[in-house]
């Protein structure tokens, strides 16, 4: 079986040039002419690759125009296809006919970078709201973030359904509970949902733009704040991308401590999420009990790492805190306790028929739809997609401790909860293995500022799924572009599809079983 790179080279032959400065070594960037960009996508589609991300860069500091990048993946291989777009003609051919996720990526490119996807079926802005002027493109270098933006009148046209008895339910962005803001527009007949349309972007903070003004060290801190509940995975992905670019190899111990933190983050969030799913069916007992377990884990984090969520503990070149022998003992004994408590609660979840009646068969995301949408993480694994970049694209130390992949086919709320139950069990085992074989070299390596126009790339399996960072250094060693792709960016699409055939009062439960990040998506 040929790799994606070979396939694309065969088809596009002399048209595909390789970018010499893409790191790490396993990732290739092929530069293709603009008129062959779709051709490359077609080849990728026929080789069963999925679209990981699509983004644009402003490369005017290097004397070029805009760069449009599409990242594809299949198994262990990640391939980036780039095309150059001149400043005076900022258009590129759309990939929406080949890949569904490009639908939103390209709307985002158009809204924020002002490069138009030709042939895109939807010209509405995405993330950038309609009260910003059409020609304000914040990711362009010519955009001055310090000036006050004049507000304009605009209207966002939702998809309408018409007919007798059809009505519309606008929900959010401000909700009755303390959750992140997002707007959902339902078209319904009685309690049956005809269509659901999301509108996000209410927590757009300009993070990608902000990266460009920060030093690499501060960038790691900002990455830790892209989505607060995934702080370890995000800062880890950022640091890995940076390290690949700068040629830095963190000491072994640092890598293992990072994995330790990553798994602890996974356990804590999965615990909270399973509880929250139960709470949405009014089965509050499990919420309180699982929240208790989560809280105790977070307190131990605070004690051992100085922060409940382990924010800013992953830094470029290593980690900021080491773990002591007593700390290892404490974690190990806590794991025994946790494992015992968790198994008792898992039985309650598994054996309550009224709960089962709610979670089974609700919000089904079929494996076919999941593949088509290119979803990642536990959402993908609950819908029959064997995707886990700890296994398929292992970053150290996962090349030595192999996680167990749980794949379920049913794609309902129960599957998404149960994948997480299994992952908690597996993460507990992983932490035991990590602590068992923790190497004893240092925790931090020095890091040189990368040379100009180097590109770094990293994927990390956070608790929500595959997090992708792509960084590009600027002419002065700063950041020219830092692309963040939270798993939410693709998984949000899946909720719209999973909700078909469900009733209105089941939406919160379905939504909770996905629990995607608004902040990570809106950036």
């Amino acid at each position, binding site marked *: 079986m040929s790799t994606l790179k070979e396939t694309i080279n065969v088809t596009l032959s002399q048209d595909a040039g390789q970018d010499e400065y893409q790191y790490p070594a396993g990732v290739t960037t092929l530069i293709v002419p603009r008129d062959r960009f779709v051709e490359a996508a077609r080849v990728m589609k026929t080789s069963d690759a999925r679209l990981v991300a699509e983004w644009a860069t402003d490369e005017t500091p290097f004397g070029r125009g805009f760069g449009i990048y599409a990242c594809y993946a299949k198994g262990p291989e990640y391939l980036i296809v780039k095309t150059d777009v001149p400043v005076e003609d900022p258009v590129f051919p759309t990939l929406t006919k080949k890949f569904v996720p490009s639908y939103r990526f390209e709307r985002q490119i158009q809204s924020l970078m002002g490069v138009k996807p030709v042939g895109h079926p939807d010209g509405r802005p995405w993330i950038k709201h309609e009260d910003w002027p059409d020609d304000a493109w914040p990711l362009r270098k010519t955009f001055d973030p310090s000036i006050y933006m004049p507000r304009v009148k605009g209207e966002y046209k939702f998809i309408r359904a018409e007919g007798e008895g059809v009505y519309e339910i606008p929900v959010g962005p401000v909700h009755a509970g303390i959750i992140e803001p997002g707007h959902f527009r339902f078209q319904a007949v009685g309690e049956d949902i005809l269509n659901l349309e999301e509108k996000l972007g209410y927590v757009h903070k300009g993070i990608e733009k902000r990266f460009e003004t920060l030093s690499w060290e501060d960038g790691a801190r900002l990455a830790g704040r892209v989505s607060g509940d995934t702080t370890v995975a995000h800062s880890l992905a950022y640091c890995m991308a940076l390290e690949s670019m700068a040629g830095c190899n963190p000491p072994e111990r640092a890598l293992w401590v990072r994995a330790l933190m990553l798994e602890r983050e996974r356990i804590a969030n999965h615990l909270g999420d399973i509880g929250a799913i139960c709470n949405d069916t009014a089965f509050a007992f499990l919420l309180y009990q699982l929240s208790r377990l989560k809280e105790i884990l977070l307190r131990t984090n605070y004690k051992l790492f100085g922060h409940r969520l382990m924010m800013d503990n992953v830094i470029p070149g290593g980690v900021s805190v080491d773990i002591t022998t007593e700390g290892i003992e404490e974690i190990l004994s806590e794991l025994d306790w946790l494992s015992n408590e968790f198994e008792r609660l898992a039985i309650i979840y598994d054996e309550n028929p009224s709960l089962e*009646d709610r979670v089974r068969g609700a919000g089904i995301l079929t494996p076919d739809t999941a593949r088509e949408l290119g979803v990642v993480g536990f959402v993908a694994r609950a819908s029959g997609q064997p995707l886990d970049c700890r296994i398929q694209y292992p970053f150290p130390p996962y090349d030595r401790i192999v996680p167990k992949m749980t794949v379920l086919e049913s794609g309902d709320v129960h599957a998404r909860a149960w994948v997480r139950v299994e992952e908690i069990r597996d993460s507990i085992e992983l932490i035991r293995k990590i602590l068992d074989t923790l190497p004893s070299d240092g925790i931090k390596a020095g890091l040189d500022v990368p040379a100009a126009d180097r590109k770094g790339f990293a994927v990390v399996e956070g608790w929500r799924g595959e997090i992708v960072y792509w960084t590009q250094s600027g002419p002065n060693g700063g950041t020219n572009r830092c692309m963040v792709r939270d798993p939410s960016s693709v998984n949000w699409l899946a909720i719209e599809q999973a909700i078909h055939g469900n009733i209105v009062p089941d939406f919160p439960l379905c939504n909770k079983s996905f629990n995607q990040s608004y902040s990570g998506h809106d950036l």
Partner: protein
Amino acid sequence: MNVFSPLFVMCLQFIAVLFAAPAFAGWVRMVKCWFQGRKSAGLFQPYRDIFKLLNKDVVLAENASWIFRFTPFLVFGTTVLAGVIIPILSIDLPLSATADAIALVALFTIARFFTALAGLDIGTAFGGMGSSREKTVASMSEPAMLMAIFTVSLVSQSTSISHMVNVIAHGEFVLRPSLAFALLAFILIALAETGRIPVDNPATHLELTMIHEAMILEYSGRHLALIEWAGMMKLFLFTTLGIALFFPWGIAAAGDITFLPVAILLLLIKLFFAGIGLVLIEIGLAKMRLFRIQEFLGSAFLFATLGLLSYFMLE
């Protein structure tokens, strides 16, 4: 004898319904917290909530009509009125001759009808959704409720609640299968009528799943206080009605009104256990899917009908 005149008992019951209802709601919440392994906010938290809401300003939607403003008072009024025709402490109530079980159901129905109208009145999607769901539930729970009460009334040959209670409490003790069926039906109906798990979740913040809460989502300040208070009274009334119909022993009889202090004490004990029983039902169940409610209330109706039939066949 004349100290405990019927009018005095009625006033006492009026005060009890008004002020004991929040405490009972507090008790249910308290027990629930304990069962979930949490600390509770205490028995008196509902009073604090009501007091807080009474002191807050009312925010009214611009297009709210008189129905929206009038509904909280109407709901509160009808609930209090229901409180003085249910024999909670004594069966010797002055109003019991004028209002029977059917009138009681009608009182709750009026309150519900106006709440549903108020939900529609301000024109938000949630209000309409809540009203539609509430009426769906009501269309199934009200007939079942009447059937359950008719089963009990067959025993006493009267639809007067006081008379029914009197026959069961002070008549000869007989084990009646019809009453067992009626009790089962009543419990299911009471869960639906008072918006408890598994039919509705009084504690949820999820707008899309709400039934009763969705209708009153736009209420604030003293309006909300009255509606919340009426909700607590409704829970209290359904509990005491259940106690009166199925476990009336100890209630003060007509000529035996000096028994009142004992009746109060026994009522407290019964409420103590009723609260625990309610929590035991709620804690072990998830809220059911909306379209399971008709099965749930259908079985309530079935139980009530079985009770009715078993009366004729067995008794």
